[in-house]
């Protein structure tokens, strides 16, 4: 039972990181019907940006204020990069064939990934120990402070996003744009602004996810974006791509699935099982858990 609860705690921690990143995929897909392949690399980039802010701007301070500042500054930086990405790589292709945008997204992914390598080098960089290593032993299940922070902060951010999308006028505009862009435009919604907004939100949530990866695992590499990006993308599909609560649920479920497979079956087959699950879902229920059935236009 201890093992089960321990794997559960670990799975939820990883799952909430997946969920944060998955939100970026699902929101962009919802409105633009585009797989933003560059999103995973944006997440990786934010960990490096955070590292540089820590060493250059914060002077390696480890106070609570410094940590909050690193989170805010990284999120702002990534939001700006996200807007630039959309303007340069995606907006000119909005009316172009679907596959052209996919290739452009892959190109953007290569640019960001290798941009990180050129700026910060190909070596693994080490993230500072900003959160003290504090552990609590709850009857055999050990929870660390960083796990609690990741879990709580992720839930708060996701709840905030949910309320924003469901309860505000701007959120309603986002929902409208994802149902039908043309109709939304006719209703007086500036779709360009909505898309920019989505990139701001998605990139800054991704930035938080990237910093969590840095804080939790410590070692960050320029090409880690693909790994986390793919997992997060699977989480988005699992929950029903385009569906915001679905991405949160999908992320959590994927984290748990991965932890239990690795714990009870085999850690070396965890990736394979995850992708087999994905393939089965797409074959059996392509719309995911919370997704609605969308007829494909022919």
């Amino acid at each position, binding site marked *: 039972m201890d093992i089960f609860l321990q794997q559960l705690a670990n799975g939820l921690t990883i799952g909430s990181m997946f969920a944060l990143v998955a939100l970026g995929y699902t929101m962009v897909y919802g409105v*633009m*019907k585009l*797989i933003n392949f560059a999103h995973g690399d944006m997440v990786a980039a934010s960990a490096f940006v955070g590292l540089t802010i820590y060493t250059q701007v914060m002077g390696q301070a480890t106070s609570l204020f410094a940590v909050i500042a690193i989170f805010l500054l990284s999120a702002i930086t990534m939001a700006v990069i996200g807007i630039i990405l959309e303007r*340069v*790589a995606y907006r*000119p*292709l*909005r*009316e*172009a*064939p*679907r*596959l*052209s*945008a*996919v*290739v*452009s997204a*892959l*190109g*953007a*992914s*290569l*640019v*960001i*990934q*290798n*941009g990180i*390598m*050129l700026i910060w080098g*190909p070596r693994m960089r080490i993230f500072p120990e900003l959160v003290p290593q504090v552990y609590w032993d709850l009857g055999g299940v050990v929870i660390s402070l960083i796990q609690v922070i990741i879990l709580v902060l992720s839930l708060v951010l996701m709840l905030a996003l949910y309320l924003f999308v469901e309860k505000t006028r701007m959120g309603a505009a986002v929902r409208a744009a994802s149902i039908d*862009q*043309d109709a939304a435009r006719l209703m007086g919604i500036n779709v360009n602004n909505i898309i920019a907004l989505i990139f701001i939100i998605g990139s800054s949530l991704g930035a938080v996810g990237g910093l969590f990866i840095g804080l939790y695992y410590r070692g960050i590499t320029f090409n880690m974006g*693909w790994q986390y990006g*793919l997992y997060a*993308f*699977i989480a988005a*599909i699992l929950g029903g791509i385009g569906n915001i609560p679905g991405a949160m649920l999908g992320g959590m479920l994927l984290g748990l699935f991965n932890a239990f497979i690795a714990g009870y079956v085999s850690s*070396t*087959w965890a*990736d*394979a099982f995850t*992708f*087999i699950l*994905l*393939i089965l879902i*797409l*074959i059996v229920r*392509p719309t995911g858990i919370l997704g609605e059935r969308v007829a*494909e*236009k*022919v």
Partner: protein
Amino acid sequence: MKELQKFPYPIFFAVMAVLPHLLNDRWQAVAITFLIFAVVALSQDIILGKSGMFNMGQALFFGMGAYTTAILNNEYGWSIVATIPLAILIPALFGILLAGPIVHLRGDYLLVVTIGFNIVFVQVLQNNLGGVTGGPNGIFGLDSLSIFGYDLMSQISVYYFAFIVLLLTLWVMHNLAGSKPGRALHYLREDQLAAESIGINTRVYKIFAFGLGAGIAGLAGTVFAVQYSAVSPEAFEFIQSVLFFSIVLVGGSSVPGILLGVFVMFVLPEIFREFATWRYFIFGFAMIAAMILRPRGIVPATFGKIPKFLIKGGSHGA
């Protein structure tokens, strides 16, 4: 545009036929790499360009052919030539089996599923399934090609082996364009609903395209195994599939476009070694720029009409 369509095949073939005699060892190796990847990119084109299926897992079939050759040679002592039929058939069969349940999926779902196949395949190799794949290191020190007792070890013989495979691939693709399945694929890519309504069994032809593309990629895998006398999981990672996917679309799904794409992606970095670290960074920008300036690819395909999915997508997707 007219000139673009008249790819000077005779000149190209003549140049390629004498090329290895003009190059030293190192550049022969580069030329062989070009031929191998050109074949894989063309096989990807059968599935992606000619049939309009978003396949991003072509490295799987490529790798399956390479591993078939490597395992049969290394574990069971088959000669390289004897492995060729199975190196084509096994990937082709897998192509058919994998495609069966997924060809009906919408575009980007198909894309994600094929990425998934690729990743599962690489993990199977890394985990040394059945104890024959050599785990994460792969298999090294394969025999060289030998026919009728002649040991064809030299780079030049490998080059001609690869060149023959490329010619064979071009011949298959040429025949496909005029054949019944080729025309069927063309129609269903243009308008699947219309194709179905005139009695074309789209599912059968889509699976056929997958099998054909997989078989050719498998043959390229054999050449790869011969050239490096080694196979390793990382050579068939899905990032390789991404490159082939991009080459076909940036090239415009035409033979000259694809060959140009392979040249830019795999030969230019060898010429400009000092840019090696900048390679993907520059390619990334080039991919974005190419798609913005020429959304149908650098050298668009000219068979019949331009494929519909390359012309008109609209903001809601195809």
